[in-house]
């Protein structure tokens, strides 16, 4: 008999809501420690230059300046996957906005004033702005010492003496032969510009160098344990001597994964005699100093039979990593093993190159390369459908992965993967795919519909793990300790639901400690990849079971009943069928005391853990292997309206279907979908870095980098959440947080073809680009 769920699957309100609506939630931005210093940075005005000299003498003499640091003397190489990053530029600057000097002072004003007194002389070098140029043999090297860097061996393949930080290959079947023999062939190229995450809280960190080479950090980060690990590796310290706190985090979207400002804050504190040092990125620095999403040049070749079966697909992905590729390499890898879309393709060839250029560097961003790759793939699918004279939905249906197919890395597709076909059908039906758009009233406007598929799996090391601790309180409540970070997704609320469900106590009695603290909270790799609810959820289930085992063990002695004959409900343990003979958890949480005063048991602390299961490294030559703990599939359909005189585009409707496996909290899940869709809309229509010919970023502020406002959302959105359970997922759930953003640009691009008969290949689809293409078309016809 399945027990009816009380909390899981219910629209429970956020655990953190009251703190956030009252302004009580404390973010790293809000943190103030006694004696804390503030930091200002001198940034490189060049995209590429040799540092000839740095004169910090005048700055050091300013009253209130406590530390002035340059890259000299900071001979550290940092990185998670590829240690290519330094704390401050050494000898050369590799991007416009790279920090060259950091000054910690009593106030931010003093630090800023001192920065203006620093004199840096540069010798400008030619800058590499296009990764395709950077791949040329003759290109200058952004990292001449790449061959000496440490990196995760067997997973990444930096090419010595080149600008290629990683080359991921996927080889399945015989592409050349299949392509040659195919009935219909198509080649198309696409481009995504670099964009920014734009968390509302910019990056911030406070660090204190403590006596005995210990470090204490407070940071706006997705990755408390990864920050701890990388700092301990970098500075050669025992892990326990690095303590990382993560208070409330004002948005991350991938940009706060791995290391950020923490090492800089630490070396400043060390130089300032152990005073705590705060580093807060200005909004401009968030754009041009901290990492962004990589740009991508894609070329896609598809071949099909006359009846619309894809027989071969080849993609070349050239990622614009920018000046550092520590995180970018993993995007190049992950987007390659997903790089043919959710389709069954027997003959596949993918080359994914992560290439250094002289631009602000890339990192993880919600979707982890998939929005970029699927911009090309899902546009190409529509192009191919037209070439075949097939309906784009029919064409996709014919090729979507089905039970019995294998993915491009050789993974067998099963019913446990979820159902991409159902997602496609759901969004097609909801948008009334077969019915053309109603003509708009105004004669200069046109409408169109588009559709696109999406998929993604968590991109993480094969050994990724996490742990959860549950402490039972004397009132029968539970304290849950985790080190995944809830920076808005709602995972803590979901974990709380699962804990209440599993411990059989009211949800009000489950408390999740909000601030992560590596001194107390158990290990979690980092909060990325839409994996926290999945892995944390499983760990919570195990931790709760551990608590219940302990409860039953003690209660068995108290009640003189075998543990297996006890059951738990409503915070009480009792012999099966005799709830009246129960003992409340509150009498067991710290140990049970008999009437005569004798006591047994002791504080109940449950422990649960989860480690990725069965993943393998990919074969270096073929990319074959099992990279994915689970896949999440989905689809979007959109209807757009275009003003053909100004190029303005309006989104009338976006329908999203995702196979969530199990919706753990519909309110939060819908929140993730709507938020992701609108963030995807930003990438589709407005967002993108603009550089001048020297590589200077021209739009590092909200004045000229526009993200959607409340006036820019679709007239309507619809969310369809499917529940084909994930084997091994908590209650059958799989991750969904990143996915809604993926393929929003592709669906809109496809709808623009329907509306205008124009094939767009470059993002963003801003008014100017749309109008330019409309006029080109008018002139050529």
């Amino acid at each position, binding site marked *: 008999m399945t027990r009816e769920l009380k909390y899981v699957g219910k629209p429970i309100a956020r655990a953190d809501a009251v703190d956030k609506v009252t302004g009580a939630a404390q973010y790293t931005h809000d943190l103030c420690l006694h004696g804390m210093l503030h930091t200002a940075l001198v940034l490189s005005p060049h995209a590429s230059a040799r540092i000839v000299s740095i004169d910090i003498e005048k700055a050091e003499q300013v009253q209130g300046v406590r530390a002035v640091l340059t890259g000299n003397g900071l001979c550290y190489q940092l990185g998670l996957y590829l240690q290519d990053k330094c704390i401050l530029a050494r000898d050369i600057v590799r991007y416009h906005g790279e920090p060259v000097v950091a000054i910690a002072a009593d106030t931010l004003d003093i630090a800023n004033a001192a920065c203006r007194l620093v004199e840096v002389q540069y010798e400008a070098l030619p800058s590499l702005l296009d990764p395709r140029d950077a791949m040329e043999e003759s290109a200058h090297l952004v990292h001449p010492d790449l061959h000496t860097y440490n990196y995760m061996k067997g997973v990444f393949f930096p090419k010595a003496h080149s600008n290629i930080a990683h080359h991921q290959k996927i080889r399945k079947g015989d592409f050349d032969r299949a392509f040659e023999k195919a009935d219909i062939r198509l080649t198309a190229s696409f481009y995504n510009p670099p964009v920014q995450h734009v968390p509302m809280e910019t990056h911030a960190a406070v660090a204190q160098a403590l006596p005995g080479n210990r470090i204490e950090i407070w940071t706006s980060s997705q990755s408390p344990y990864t920050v701890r690990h990388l700092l301990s590796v970098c500075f050669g310290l025992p892990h326990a001597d690095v303590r990382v706190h993560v208070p409330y985090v004002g948005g991350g979207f991938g940009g706060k994964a791995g290391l950020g400002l923490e090492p800089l804050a630490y070396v400043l504190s060390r130089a300032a005699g152990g005073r705590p040092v705060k580093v807060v990125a200005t909004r401009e620095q968030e754009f041009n100093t901290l990492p962004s999403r990589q740009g991508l040049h894609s070329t896609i070749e598809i071949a099909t039979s006359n009846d619309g079966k894809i027989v071969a697909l080849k993609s070349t992905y050239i990622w614009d990593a920018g000046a550092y590729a520590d995180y970018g390499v993993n995007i190049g890898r992950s987007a390659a093993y997903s790089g043919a879309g959710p389709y069954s393709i027997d003959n596949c060839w993918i080359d994914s190159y992560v290439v250094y250029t002289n631009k602000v560097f890339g990192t993880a961003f919600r979707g982890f390369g998939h929005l970029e790759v699927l911009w090309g793939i899902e546009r190409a699918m529509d192009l191919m459908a037209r070439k075949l004279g097939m309906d784009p939905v029919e064409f996709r249906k014919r090729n979507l992965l089905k039970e019995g197919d294998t993915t491009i890395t050789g993974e067998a597709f099963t019913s446990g993967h979820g159902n991409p076909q159902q997602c496609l059908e759901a969004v097609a039906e909801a948008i009334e795919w077969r019915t053309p758009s109603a003509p708009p009233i105004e004669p200069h406007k046109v409408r169109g519909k588009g559709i696109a598929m999406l998929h993604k799996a968590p991109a993480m090391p094969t050994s990724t793990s996490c742990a959860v601790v549950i402490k039972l309180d004397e009132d029968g409540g539970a304290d849950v300790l985790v080190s995944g970070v809830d920076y808005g997704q709602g995972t803590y609320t979901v974990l709380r639901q699962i804990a209440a469900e599993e411990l059989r106590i009211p949800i009000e009695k489950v408390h999740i400690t909000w601030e992560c603290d590596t001194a107390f909270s158990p290990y979690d790799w980092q909060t990325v990849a839409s994996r926290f609810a999945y892995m944390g959820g499983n760990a919570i289930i195990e931790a709760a079971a551990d608590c219940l085992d302990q409860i039953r063990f003690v209660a068995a002695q108290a009640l003189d009943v075998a543990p297996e004959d006890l059951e738990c409900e409503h915070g009480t343990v009792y012999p099966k069928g005799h709830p009246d003979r129960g003992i409340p958890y509150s009498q067991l949480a710290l140990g049970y005391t008999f009437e005569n005063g004798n006591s047994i048991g002791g504080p109940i602390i449950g422990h649960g853990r989860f480690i990725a299961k069965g993943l393998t490294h990919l074969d270096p030559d073929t990319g074959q292997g099992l990279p994915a703990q689970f896949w999440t599939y989905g689809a979007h359909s959109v209807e757009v309206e275009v003003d053909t005189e100004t*190029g303005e585009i309006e989104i009338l409707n976006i329908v999203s279907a995702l196979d969530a496996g199990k919706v753990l909290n519909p309110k939060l899940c819908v929140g993730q979908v709507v938020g992701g869709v609108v963030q995807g809309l930003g990438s589709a229509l407005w967002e993108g870095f603009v550089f001048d010919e020297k590589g200077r970023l021209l739009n590092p502020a909200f004045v000229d980098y526009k993200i959607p406002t409340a006036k820019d959302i679709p007239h309507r959105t619809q969310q369809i959440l499917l529940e084909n359970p994930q084997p091994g997922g908590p209650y059958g759930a799989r991750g969904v947080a990143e996915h809604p953003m993926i393929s929003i640009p592709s669906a809109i691009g496809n709808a623009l073809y329907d509306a205008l008969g124009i094939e767009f290949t470059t993002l963003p689809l801003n008014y100017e680009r749309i109008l330019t293409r409309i006029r080109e078309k008018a002139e050529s016809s």
Partner: protein
Amino acid sequence: MLGNFEYKRIRSIEEGCQYLAEAAGDGAVLAGGTDLLVEIRNGLKSPQLLVDCKGLDVLNVFSVDDSRSTIGASVALNQLIEHRVFRTTHPALADALASIGTYQLRNRATLVGNICNASPAADAAPVLLVLDAVVEVAGVEGPRTVPVRSFFAGVKKTTLKPDEIVTAIALPARSGLRTAFRKQQRIRGHDLAVVNAAGAYSPAKKVLKLAIGSCAPTPVLLDPIEVDSKDNEAFADHVIETVLRAVSPISDVRASAGYRNAVLPILVKRILHELLFEGSGA
């Protein structure tokens, strides 16, 4: 903290002019501050003295009627936009003001500030130009008036002297004018104009005035155009040709010259449509 300056809240306009005269070009008038404080923060301006005129009741008032409207220098945009009589008397100006910045910003920003900032993209400027607005100015040497068409001297430059304070904008009698404002942004949310334009049409005199923003170093007022209502399309083509001859848009991070040149005729056409071809406008 922003820059390094002194702050004076003045008790009279004369006192303000005196302070500005003493600052000899290093002073700035602080009204809403929504442009000035950003420029100070970004290091684009570094005045030594800010003269805050918002304490003066005389600058905090506006009067609107059919014969003449006067808008004091401290009147916030939302006071005007949310004023029913102002909105019906000056609908195009209200539209232009409502397109500036965010709601919060419009609770601080002022009409006078919008033109004193002298951005080529100032949204109020084209409307004020076609309405023949007059800038009322006080200085050490006494008050004077400047027609808005003589007010802008270049990008972020006006014809004001260092000691002068704009006290108000005066709008002459409407005398049956129909007016319209159009703005092209990059996004529906708050944005600077890629191109903006305003038109005023006098059905009695059969004369059309047009002004264009964001397409030259200053907002551009075209010579009055005699309206020939026989052939709307030919007239529109003629007007658009005249407009394109009068402007010199550049390419920048906001838009290419090509896009500005492509959108400007559309805005003009839509203005003509509203003012001339669609029966009676407001």
